[in-house]
């Protein structure tokens, strides 16, 4: 996805990447345009299933970054922790 972001920016489309902390190092090395690093588990970059508040907060932080970043390689860490949600309803 680092490559997709780079190509989009070259083509004039601003991007923000939302990626988990485990991917931080590899992403950093690609100098991504903007990346929000989430303290979440693999396969669940926006937060736990059913944790609407956390998912929302993650997107809002990404939108802030979209507006505030001034140069490529702007990487911001989302505070907080991954916590399983009690809200998850089985489908």
């Amino acid at each position, binding site marked *: 996805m680092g490559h997709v972001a780079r190509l989009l920016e070259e083509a004039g489309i601003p991007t923000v990447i939302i990626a988990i902390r485990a991917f931080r190092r590899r992403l950093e090395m690609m*100098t991504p345009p903007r990346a929000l690093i989430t303290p979440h588990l693999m396969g669940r970059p926006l937060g736990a299933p059913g944790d609407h508040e956390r998912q929302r907060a993650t997107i809002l932080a990404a939108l802030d970054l979209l507006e505030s970043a001034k140069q490529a390689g702007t990487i911001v860490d989302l505070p907080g922790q991954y916590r399983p949600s009690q809200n998850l309803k089985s489908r």
Partner: protein
Amino acid sequence: MKTENTASESFKEFKGSFSYGSRSDLNFKFLAGLSDEEAAKFFQDLLWKLGDSFNDGKFDRLVDHVYEWQIRAYSGEGKWVYDEGAFTPLRKPVAESRLVLLTSSGHFVEGDDPEPFGVKNMTQKEAMARIGEFVKTEPALSVISINTPREKLRVRHGGYDIRGAQADPNVAFPLERLLELNQEGIIAELAPEAYSFVGACAQTPLLKHTAPQWVKMLQQQPVDAAILVPV
């Protein structure tokens, strides 16, 4: 396939079995890349913490333990290194912008299966078994109308544990959250189509051939910015 519980299995084989082996578990495939000492420490601390949880009923420490080890396991340097990159400033605030969602989570709409390698209704299990082929193949882009009801969303990806994304697509494909923010006016507009592909794919063809086509398509829509979620 190794048979389980063979007396002669080495610790190296045991830890390797979690990465597409007899005990394949994509949450823990990183075990294969740890040294024997590290993997032993992972299990020892996991069990110790589990013992604490028996007493206080708090299991968050297990989540944190796995989280820390996932970071540790992936702390090595990647193949792709760029010292600088293009940057396009956002032209207007998000509240006036049209955004598009693109993820590598492997989501698609029921009835519009990308059918990798021509296989109809490929199971997650088969996708895991064929991961070696996925990473050598150009990805297909699934087009997902933003009006797609949640129950019509499907996910298949041989590279990660999809159970979270099955339970709630928004953990990796946050369409519902984006729609809410759009309704509240925080995002002016969402592009009518969102996109997803299987991120475990051939990277050079993605860079040289596939992704440039996606970029052209998005330029033509047009969109003001893209939210990208690698999984």
